[in-house]
């Protein structure tokens, strides 16, 4: 047995063995995700979707994953459709959805919401993003993308770029990459540096970690540029924001002749120029597709 988890709440709950199991299973799911094969393994099963915050990719890819495996989906996609507007607690809402479904996927604006309901209900819970907290399925699909492109995650050199302070995907990803002994470089404006406690944890695991403010310092010696969006609201001064935004923008000229791939959790705004989209280095749309086989593998492992 490769997978012991009953819920998928935080990447910190995973062992390297759990992650490798899911990545391997995801590969088997790819022909089904691409509609080259059909599957009925979750036929008759229902996935409950509790989305208190809007989401396109995560919600649609979970729905696609469940349906590709022969299952069906119920739920709501924004808080206005839920009974939270009538004052119902999350605890009660989760108990009710658990009466109708075989597993729950939740996105909520409060940190810890997924862990909280997983303590209350008996069916598996998958965290699809809890505030500024965890988004473990994004991390798994990021790892899967690297594995599919490079075959081995071990030994890669990965640069995490942009908002490393508030970006939830980069925190989980840094912890996961550490399990695979990946060399990491954190590239961000000084206002948005990777939190000290994360750097401390990584160094304790003897992971090679470097920090810089310039992409040009690292681009010649890196396999993966993992780009995240710098949000305007992090900067009180709009002029400061536009200056910083420009310094962390990836474009075709920068990538010219370089053996590097570009990943992004999406939605992208203007931190990657559209002139990158047609280049072989562009992997972010492929990355978005890989969300389906990875989530299929998780659903299969969790729903008994």
């Amino acid at each position, binding site marked *: 047995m490769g997978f012991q988890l009953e819920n998928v709440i935080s990447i910190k709950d995973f062992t390297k063995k759990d992650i490798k199991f899911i990545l391997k299973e995801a590969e088997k799911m790819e022909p089904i995700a691409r509609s080259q094969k059909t599957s009925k393994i979750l036929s008759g099963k229902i996935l409950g979707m509790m989305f208190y915050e809007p989401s396109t990719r995560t919600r649609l890819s979970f729905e696609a994953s469940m349906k590709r495996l022969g299952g069906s989906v119920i739920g709501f996609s924004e808080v206005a459709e839920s009974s939270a507007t009538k004052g119902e607690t999350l605890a009660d809402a989760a108990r009710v959805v658990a009466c109708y479904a075989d597993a729950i996927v939740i996105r909520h604006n*409060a940190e810890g919401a997924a862990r*909280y309901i997983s303590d209350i209900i008996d069916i598996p819970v998958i965290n699809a993003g809890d*505030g500024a907290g965890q988004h473990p399925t994004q991390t798994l699909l990021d790892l899967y993308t690297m594995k599919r492109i490079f075959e081995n995650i071990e030994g890669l050199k990965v640069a995490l770029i942009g908002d490393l302070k508030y970006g939830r995907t980069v925190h989980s990803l840094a912890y996961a990459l550490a399990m695979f002994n990946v060399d990491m470089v954190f590239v961000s404006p000084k206002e948005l540096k990777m939190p000290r406690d994360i750097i401390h944890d990584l160094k304790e695991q003897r992971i090679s970690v470097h920090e810089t403010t310039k992409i040009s310092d690292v681009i010649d010696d890196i396999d993966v540029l993992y780009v995240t969006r710098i949000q305007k609201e992090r900067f009180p001064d709009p002029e400061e924001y536009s200056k910083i935004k420009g310094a962390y923008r990836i474009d075709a000229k920068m990538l010219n002749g370089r053996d590097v791939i570009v990943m992004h959790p999406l939605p992208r705004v203007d931190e990657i120029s559209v002139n990158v989209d047609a280049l072989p280095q562009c992997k972010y749309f492929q990355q978005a597709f890989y969300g389906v086989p990875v989530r299929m593998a998780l659903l299969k492992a969790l729903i008994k």
Partner: protein
Amino acid sequence: MRKPKELKVKPIKNGTVIDHITSNKALHVLKILGLPDGKSRVTVAINMESSRYGSKDIVKVENRELESNEVDQIALIAPKATINIIRDYEIVEKWKVHLLDEVHGILKCPNPNCITNKREPVETRFYVINREPVILRCHFCERLMGEDEIESQF
């Protein structure tokens, strides 16, 4: 009974003496114990000399025998404190406080956006991930809490 001159705090007949409290933390300890409660007779000594630690605080609560689960939370504030149960001027039980692996209910998560700070029927829960200095991790939002944040709650 002859009263020794050097005795700054009067012995008690029955009750609990909490000794070796980290100096200047006695008032936090009272808060943890829900004191003063309007009826208990309590003696507090702050910044006393201690041969072992240089200085210390002492709290004496008369006619109340604190239970170990009541006082274990004191370890969050004063990890070297000792508890003495007194009956008829004699120490009948003595033990050191012990910080449990988990802290339930007592503390609030410092993250305002944690689910435990929303209107949900939930008790807070923290894992002790470091004992000296004390660092706790919220079971729900995974946020870390250090000594300053712990003390500011008492």
